[in-house]
């Protein structure tokens, strides 16, 4: 089989609102290879979390629906998979790490028991074996005295350690794919760096693939092989990270890169992208970015723009992609 590990194709998702069903994802497509780390970046509200939840089969069933598209994991179609089968996949082949470990860990149970519970649910086996596995993964993620610390409760760990406990739980069944939504946003940069090192080690050891959702373009530069840039419910650019940062091919990516505050010197007034994100259900005609784009021409205002495949690999959803020379980050 030559298909990538994860193939998301033409995904469309709608949410129920007071104004009826409103589309929040429009034709989202991307792939993730085995052992690859793909960054999912973009404007607040652009659909990164909804994309992650859709792949994980965690959309709220009463208020959300997939209206088109396909999600294949290792060749298996996930859209339309019965709930129970999806549950079995999660934790086994597919797992997740969220931003706030305190909300995903149960404060009333020892962390070792919580990991062991996941192991038993997916792998069966004895309580003793599951506990041993829990201790093993805790020590893999660098928790010292794992045997003893497995008996601790979540509040007895620091934020960074809790995040590692979450990672241990996510990795306990050696999943093929981990979806991590802002896993380091609440951590200081030294602990963030440790967590990223850990994810790299997991990739090298188990070939784990990761979808990494983040606002932090420094983190993407550090850990991702490729990036998917989202704007207003659509993928606007896909590229390898070197190309993306040095030669962005979509004006939104360019604007994002140029707005980054610099660590090395204080800037004057910080750059912003004029205007604001269009609300779901009221997307502008033509290119969705056109009201805010510095390179807009008349054609952008009325022609809906498709994703253009690029010669160097990747795609851009910009009408002017072949004529624009956009600025990257130095």
């Amino acid at each position, binding site marked *: 089989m030559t298909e990538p590990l994860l193939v998301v194709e033409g995904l469309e998702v709608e949410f129920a609102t007071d104004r009826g069903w409103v589309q929040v994802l429009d034709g989202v497509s991307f792939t993730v290879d085995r052992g690859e780390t793909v960054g999912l970046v973009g404007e607040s509200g652009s659909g990164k979390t909804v994309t992650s939840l859709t792949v994980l089969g965690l959309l709220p069933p009463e208020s959300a629906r997939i209206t088109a598209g396909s999600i294949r994991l290792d060749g298996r179609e996930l859209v339309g998979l019965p709930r129970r089968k999806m549950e079995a996949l999660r934790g086994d082949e597919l797992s997740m790490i969220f931003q706030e470990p305190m909300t995903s860990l149960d404060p009333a149970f020892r962390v070792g028991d919580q990991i062991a519970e996941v192991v038993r649910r997916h792998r069966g086996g004895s309580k003793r074996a599951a506990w041993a596995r829990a201790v093993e993964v805790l020590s893999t993620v660098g928790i010292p005295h794992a045997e003893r610390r497995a008996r601790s409760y979540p509040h007895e760990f620091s934020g960074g350690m809790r995040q590692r406990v979450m990672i241990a739980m996510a990795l306990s069944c050696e999943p093929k794919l981990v979806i991590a939504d802002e896993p380091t946003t609440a951590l200081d940069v030294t602990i963030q760096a440790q967590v990223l090192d850990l994810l790299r080690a997991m990739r090298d050891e188990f070939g784990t693939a990761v979808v990494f959702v983040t606002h932090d373009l420094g983190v*993407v530069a550090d850990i991702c092989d490729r990036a998917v840039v989202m704007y207003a419910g659509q993928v606007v650019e896909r590229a390898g990270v070197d190309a993306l*940062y040095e030669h962005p091919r979509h004006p939104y990516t360019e604007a994002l890169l140029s707005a980054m505050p610099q660590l090395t010197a204080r800037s004057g007034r910080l750059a912003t992208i004029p205007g604001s994100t269009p609300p779901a259900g009221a997307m502008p005609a033509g290119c969705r970015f056109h009201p805010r784009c510095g390179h807009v021409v008349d054609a952008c205002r009325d022609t809906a723009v498709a994703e253009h495949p690029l010669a160097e690999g990747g795609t851009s959803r910009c009408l002017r992609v072949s004529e624009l020379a956009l600025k990257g980050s130095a």
Partner: protein
Amino acid sequence: MTNAVNASQSTSGSVSPRADPAGPVAEVEDLTVDFRLRGGILGRGGTLRAVRGVSLEIGERETLGLVGESGSGKSTTGRAMLRLVEPTAGSVRLDGEEITALGRGDLRLARRRMQMVFQDPYSSLDPAMVVGESIGEPLDVHESLSRSERSTRVGDLLEHVGLSATYAQRYPYEFSGGQRQRLAIARAIALNPRLLVCDEAVSALDVSTQNQILNLLEDLQAEFGLSYLFIAHDLAVVRHIAHRVAVMYLGEIVETAPTDRLFDRPAHPYTEALLSAVPVPNPRRQRERERIVLRGEVPDAANPPSGCAFHTRCPHVMDVCKVEAPPVVTAPGGGTVRCHLHT
């Protein structure tokens, strides 16, 4: 427009006492905050000293950045200054007035002069109320305004944070994350505070939205003379917005400095490691970057190491560090540092 924010000073309540008009807006001295733990590793209770003798000052129109290890006590420091958690010991003065000694009623009055903006804009607005109600709430608590005065004030506040006055009638779910953060700021400045504590106020936002909020904070500071305690993990943001920076590690401030000095010539080994761990937003340069890797575990805050609290992980550790706590000394180039390399 100005009266939207200034009126609160003249309407009700006592005018804030200011011992020294040129003195700092906020002065924190030897602040200590303990938490009682229920059941430790072995089922024993205990005390966790989250903030250990923190002293800092924030001047008028000054932004003090507060950075450091996750769990080092940054939020607790900010919350204790507003007495959202009770300080165990130490002093907090706002415009010269001792906050820690205030009774309930006086504390309520003092709170109008200090406000907090949190990371999660969702938590600071009541989802069941139109946002005009949430923003006007502090006005109701502290001032008696007629309906029309109140709605004018709310409208002015909304316009001040870059939103239309007509948004007052909408519910929180109709706003994006960035807009909600603007609403939280509008609510926080409703009573013309002297000091805003911003705790990871922009960290959930994308870069462009984050920058809009930072620009807004700078505008409000210039216009109303606000002072900020700006708590953040994003060091590039701190470099941009802060005039001075304090670095915390395990409940203590280990370094303070004018912003440029801190970033260009860090004096404390922890600060140095922190700066080296910031990923550069360029993959090629990031791959070439050398990071100072901190060995060892983050120590348990309930059981801090002897001597210098950082000695278990410090790349420059010496014998003296293990036994003797370093004093706070003046750092080369300005500010202070707590490290034996400088004593």
